[in-house]
């Protein structure tokens, strides 16, 4: 016998250690929009809104994802960390954050939060640490300094 699909009308998740609940009309929102408008984490930036630029990257259960592509309903029971939290509380994030600052890497800074999350979520540290830039667009063209900062941070890790 086939059971009916379970109706879902709320979602609970943790954002930077604090529990939040989303209900009804919020469930179809892109996570990026919900994080900014309802969880108040405006350190999540929105660029292209279709998974290309990487500005909205967050850590979802430790995996770096484009939050513009994730519907809020997919986040039930998950642990979300935004760039500001990663830069402060994640050991690897702190290293990368320091590396980016030391290399004077950010110009406008819009892409840097996403790059930080990508670097912190890099699960298998093999190959070039700057490969995480494959998921990011920097409109200022600061790739050389970003890459150097990521390599320096990996060397210090």
């Amino acid at each position, binding site marked *: 016998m086939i059971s009916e699909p379970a109706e879902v009308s709320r979602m609970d998740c943790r954002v930077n250690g604090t529990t939040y609940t989303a209900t009804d009309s919020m469930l*179809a929102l892109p996570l990026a929009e919900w994080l900014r408008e309802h969880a108040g984490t405006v350190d999540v930036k929105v660029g292209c809104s279709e998974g290309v630029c990487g500005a909205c990257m967050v850590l979802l259960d430790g995996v770096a994802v*484009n939050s513009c592509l994730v519907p809020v309903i997919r986040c039930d029971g998950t642990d979300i960390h935004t760039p500001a939290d990663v830069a402060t509380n994640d050991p690897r994030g702190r290293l990368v954050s320091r590396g980016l600052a030391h290399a004077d890497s950010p110009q406008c800074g819009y892409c840097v939060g996403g790059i930080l999350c990508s670097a912190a979520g890099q699960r298998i540290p093999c190959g070039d640490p700057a490969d995480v830039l*494959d998921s990011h667009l920097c409109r200022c063209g600061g790739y050389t300094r970003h890459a150097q900062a990521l390599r320096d941070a990996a060397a210090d890790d």
Partner: protein
Amino acid sequence: MSVRWSRAASPEVALDAIASGATPVAGATALYSRAFPARVGDKATLLAWSPAAPSASGVDALTTLDALGRGDVPHAVCLAARAAANPSVRRLATVGGWVSLRSAASDIAAPLLAVGAQVRVLTPSGAATLPYGDYLRGGVGAPHLVTSIGFPPAHRSTYRRIPLRATPGPVLLGVAGARTDTATTVAVTAGTHSVVVTGDRDIAPAELIDRLRPAVTRTLPARLLTPALRVGSAVAHDL
């Protein structure tokens, strides 16, 4: 946007929801992308079961492209998974969604045609398996749910792609080849077009290209003829 959501814990439950008008949502990368029309109406069902690990014989539809690219699957499929989109999209997008687009303009089309992949679907009348080429041409009607992709054994396979961003029309030319115990196959895909040619296991690359030339001339736009044959020749020599 007001959407009634449900959570499906198995393919059978998901199919039930789809049959009642719900849109299946898994990786959700097509949900907010401007590259696709809005796909979620007023009902949606979240596909929420754990996929089995990819193997040489097949891959679950809910496997992410990231896991597919690291999996023990035919090499051509692995290369295609690593080439698609960008790393962050690959961590979300699923094989089922990729295949369900039924697009020859995607990276996965040529490898699945070349290795002779089988698409396993669940329909209201039960489970069914059909060749990927038939599925690509619309071989299964709605409602249905792609549950897994099966791979026949292949000794060697490879995939090469040319992004054609500067051209109007198709933006990706994909060429894949596979060699099995009995046959060698090369598949070329671009836009809505696909070409598959097959020869004996030990067919010479030049002879395979001689068979490919009339097929791509008939099928592909003229401007893609030279790149298709050039990449096809490289793939034939790789096998």
